[in-house]
């Protein structure tokens, strides 16, 4: 498989407060890769390392087949980037911001930019400082798309936008991907939004990658089981991993298990042990993400205690 982004054992530290330790990441070319994590998990830091804004202390980063930050200017010609917060010079008009941006990009498509201007309902003479958050978000997306990128890096691109603008922006991005087969790396905490269009998902917490799998696999493997007579049954030794175990609605003999790696034949294994499987519920990406995060944190705190 060819990868648009590759991180190999990347390490970066910000004093004693936060660090990314030996992060290994693979974003398949042509995929829409959702990068999930709670606030402060290291999503934006990872993106800044990709963009060459910060230098890793160790490890290798390759983007579109080239080493970063060594080949950065060449790589960035093929990358569209929407940062977490607006970064445009506020005293400029939309047209001026477009002119400035276009002057740095060899691949700038002026015709496509004009088309996007209309499509996203932006006026060229509008001053950026007088624009709403939604309009600024749309302008940033326009600037990122009009360079005709092979790789689009979006850091919380729809954060704080109203649903209508969010839909406009994401529809524009998806149309572009459908047309060009570009790779999208999108970081967001709006998990259910990512679920609609991502085909890969990576989860980061406290600077470490917890999982990186195709979305379907992620969702398929995580289930909530409603079990009878499961009290006292040890979960170790089962072919799936138990992420969470809670008594259900105060009923003594009933428990709810959140498991990862569940497959149909596992029901028989439980029933052999005298457990009745009442219900197997598919979790959506958001629930799965929360459960996975909870279990990893519990596991980490146990290891810390030891």
């Amino acid at each position, binding site marked *: 498989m060819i990868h648009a982004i590759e991180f190999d054992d990347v390490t970066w530290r910000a004093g004693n407060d936060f660090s990314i330790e030996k992060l290994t990441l693979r974003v398949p070319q042509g995929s829409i890769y959702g990068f999930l994590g709670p606030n402060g998990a290291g999503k934006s830091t990872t993106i800044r390392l990709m963009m060459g804004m910060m230098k890793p202390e160790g490890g290798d980063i390759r983007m579109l087949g080239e080493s970063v930050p060594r080949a950065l200017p060449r790589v960035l010609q093929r990358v569209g980037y929407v940062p977490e917060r607006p970064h445009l*010079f506020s005293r400029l008009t939309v047209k001026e911001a477009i002119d400035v941006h276009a002057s740095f990009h060899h691949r700038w498509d002026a015709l496509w930019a004009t088309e996007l201007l209309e499509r996203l309902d932006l006026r060229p003479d509008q001053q950026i400082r007088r624009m709403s958050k939604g309009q600024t978000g749309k302008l940033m997306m326009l600037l990122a798309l009009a360079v005709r990128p092979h790789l689009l890096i979006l850091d919380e691109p729809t954060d704080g936008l109203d649903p209508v603008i969010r839909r406009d922006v994401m529809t524009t991005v998806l149309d572009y991907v459908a047309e060009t087969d570009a790779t999208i790396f999108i970081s967001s905490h709006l998990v259910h939004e990512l679920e609609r269009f991502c085909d890969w998902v990576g989860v980061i917490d406290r600077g470490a990658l917890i999982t990186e799998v195709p979305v379907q696999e992620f969702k398929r493997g995580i289930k909530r089981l409603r079990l009878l007579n499961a009290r006292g049954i040890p979960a170790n030794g089962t072919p799936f991993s138990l992420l969470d175990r809670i008594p259900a609605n105060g009923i003594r003999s009933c428990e709810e298990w959140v498991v990862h790696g569940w497959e149909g034949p596992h029901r028989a294994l439980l029933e052999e042990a005298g457990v009745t499987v009442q219900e197997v519920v598919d979790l959506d990406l958001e629930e799965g993400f929360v459960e996975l995060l909870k279990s990893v944190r519990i596991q980490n705190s146990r290891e810390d205690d030891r």
Partner: protein
Amino acid sequence: MSMQMLKLHWRAARWPMLPVLVAAFGLPLMAGWSTWEASGAADSLEATSAWSVIDGAAIWGLGFPVLAAIAGAVIGLCAWTWDHRHDHIYALSLPIARWKYVAIKFGGGTILVAATTGVFALGAGLSSLLADLPVGIRGYPGNLSIHFFVATQTAFALLFALASGTMRTATIFIGAVFALVIAGQPTLDLLGGFWAPIGAIDLGQLAHSLLIENDGPLSIFSGNWMLFDV
């Protein structure tokens, strides 16, 4: 790309530069205007008139290096205004090598320095043309403008470098300079009590000789700034 960077620099600097440009045009004119008074007041005595003109030019000449320092500082400080406001994120996301970005920005600033010098040269030229100069006194608008350009460019380069860093770096640097100015000499005097050679150091004199005398980096701000001279 360079044109766009220059435009951005001008957009950031234009309002603070407006009074500087007015002064750059007006100050040499004022120096010339003083000659009308000087030569008019003593037209019967040519020598007295010549000295009055030179005296007047010398007084106005004190303002030119100050103006050059202010012009350079304004252009230098405004070079990075927008980059700092957004933590340099926009600049860092552009597909251009960092040294090239800085070089283009510096080049843009140099053009603004040249434009300011152009305005100054216009004022100085006009002033020389209109001046009522006694025999033996000449106007030096060209030389003065070159002097002004180099001084402005020096101030610009210093402030450009200082402003390119973070607020923390700038604060540390300015704080260190202030600390040296305020506490430097008393500290040396105090230490002189233990070891006499240290007490003999005159910090002001040392700074002057290092920075201004003997072709020091700021020596351009000293020397002859006369628009009218023999």
